[in-house]
C-alpha cells in the first residue's frame, strides 16, 4: 500500500530518515520544474531544490496537517527561488537587459504574424529569449502567481495561501502578469484578422 505524504511526514517528524527520503523522491522533480521556471537557470534550480528540502526538513514541525504538503513545499521552493534571485541581484540585471527589448528594436524583431501559427512553432532560441525577457518583467509575486497557475495548475485559493494574500488579490496578480506578458509578446503572436 502506498504511503501517503502525511504518513511519511509524520514518520519523518519522529526522526525516520527513510520517510523523508520518500518525500524527496516523490516531489523533487516537480520542485525542480517550479524552481527552473522561477530562476530560469538549471544550476540555480538544482540549488533551490536542495535548499527547499533542507528548509522543509528543518520546519517539519511547523507544517499543519490539515494543509497540503505539496502546496507547502511549493511555497518553500518559491521563497527559496525568490531569495536566490534577490541575493544574486539577477532581477535587476534582467530588468536592465530588458530595455533592449522595448521600443523600436523590438518592433523590428517582430515575427511574421500568421504563417506558421506561433503555437505550432518549435520555440526558437530567439523566441525563448523573448519569453524569458517577458517573464523577467514580472514582479516576484506576479511571476510566482503566474507560474503556479499556468504551469502547475494550482487553484487560485492555494496560490493566495502560498503568497499570503487574499484570493481576489491572487486573481488580480495573475491578471497583471498575463497583461505584462501580453504587452511584451503580443507582436509575436498577433493573429491574422482574415483567418478568424
Amino acid at each position, binding site marked *: 500500500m502506498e504511503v501517503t505524504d502525511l504518513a511519511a511526514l509524520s514518520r519523518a517528524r519522529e526522526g525516520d530518515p527513510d520517510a523523508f527520503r520518500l518525500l524527496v523522491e516523490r516531489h523533487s522533480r516537480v520542485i525542480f520544474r517550479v524552481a527552473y521556471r522561477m530562476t530560469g537557470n538549471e544550476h540555480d534550480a538544482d540549488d533551490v531544490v536542495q535548499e527547499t528540502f533542507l528548509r522543509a526538513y528543518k520546519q517539519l514541525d511547523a507544517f499543519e496537517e490539515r494543509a497540503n504538503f505539496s502546496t507547502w513545499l511549493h511555497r518553500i521552493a518559491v521563497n527559496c527561488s525568490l531569495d536566490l534571485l534577490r541575493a544574486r541581484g539577477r532581477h535587476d540585471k534582467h530588468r536592465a537587459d530588458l530595455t533592449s527589448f522595448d521600443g523600436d528594436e523590438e518592433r523590428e524583431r517582430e515575427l511574421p504574424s500568421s504563417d506558421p501559427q506561433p503555437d505550432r512553432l518549435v520555440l526558437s532560441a530567439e523566441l525563448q529569449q523573448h519569453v524569458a525577457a517577458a517573464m523577467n518583467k514580472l514582479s516576484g509575486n506576479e511571476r510566482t502567481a503566474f507560474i503556479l497557475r499556468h504551469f502547475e495548475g494550482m487553484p487560485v485559493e492555494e496560490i493566495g495561501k502560498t503568497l499570503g494574500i487574499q484570493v481576489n488579490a491572487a486573481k488580480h496578480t495573475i491578471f497583471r502578469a498575463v497583461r505584462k*506578458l501580453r504587452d511584451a509578446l503580443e507582436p509575436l503572436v498577433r493573429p491574422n484578422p482574415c483567418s478568424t
Partner: protein
Amino acid sequence: MQHLNEEQLVAHYYHDDEAPAVAESHLAACTECRLQYETIRRVLTLVGDAPVPERDEHYAEQVWTRLRWKLGARKRRAKWTSLIAAAAVLAVAFFAGQWWHARNLRNNNIPQIATTSTHGIQNVSATQPQQDRVLLVVVSDHLESSERMLAEVANANPHEQYDVPADRAADLVASNRMYRQSAANRGDQRIATLLSDLEPILTELAHAGKTLSPEEVASIQKRIESKQLLFKVRIVSAQTGSGGDKPVPAHSNSL
C-alpha cells in the same frame, strides 16, 4: 452588447470565472472579444511552450545523496511525551533531594565521614551535586533545542515573513518555565537569568500565530542580538553539555 474585459478573458482562459457559459456564448457571438481572447490564448501558449530541462529517473536519488549529509538527526519527541518526561525527571530530582535532605538531617549527629584521595579530601555528603547533575542533564537538552530555534530566527530573512514553528516554541516555553523555577529554587542565578532572558522570545514565538511579519522578525532579531542571547545559550549549553560527565565540586552552586 457589453464586452468582456481583459481580466474576465484571462479568468475564462484559466476556468476561474464564475459564469463560464455566459462568457462562452458571448465569445461565440462577439468577434472583437473573440480576437482578444485568441491573442491571450496565443501568448499563453507561447509562454507555455518554453521548455524545461528534463531530469532523469535518478534525479531524486542524487538530490537525496547530497541532502542526507546536511540533515541532522531529529530529536523530536511527541509534544506531551517530552513535557511528561521533563516533569518526571524534575519530580525524581525533587524527591531525591528530599530523601538526601532527610538523610543528612539524620546524620547531623554523626561525625562527617571524610575520605582521603590522591586529590585531597572530599566530602561524601553530595546532596547538591547529585541534584544539580539531574537538572543539568535536562537543561542541557532544553538549551540545545532553544539554541536551534534562536538560530533559525536569527538567520531568517528580515525582509520576509517567517513561518513560526509555534508548537515547538510552545513546548520550549513550558519546559523553560519549569527549568527556570528549578534553577532559581536551587540558587543557580546564571541558569535562571539566562532562562529568564530566553522566555519572552520563546513566548512571543509561541503566540505569534503562523507567521511573523518582516518588522516582527527584525525586532526579534534585534533583541536576540542586543542580549547576545544566542551566544550565551551556546556557551551555557556547551558548558552544561560537557559538565554532565564531570564531577561537580561539593561547594559549587553552578550547573
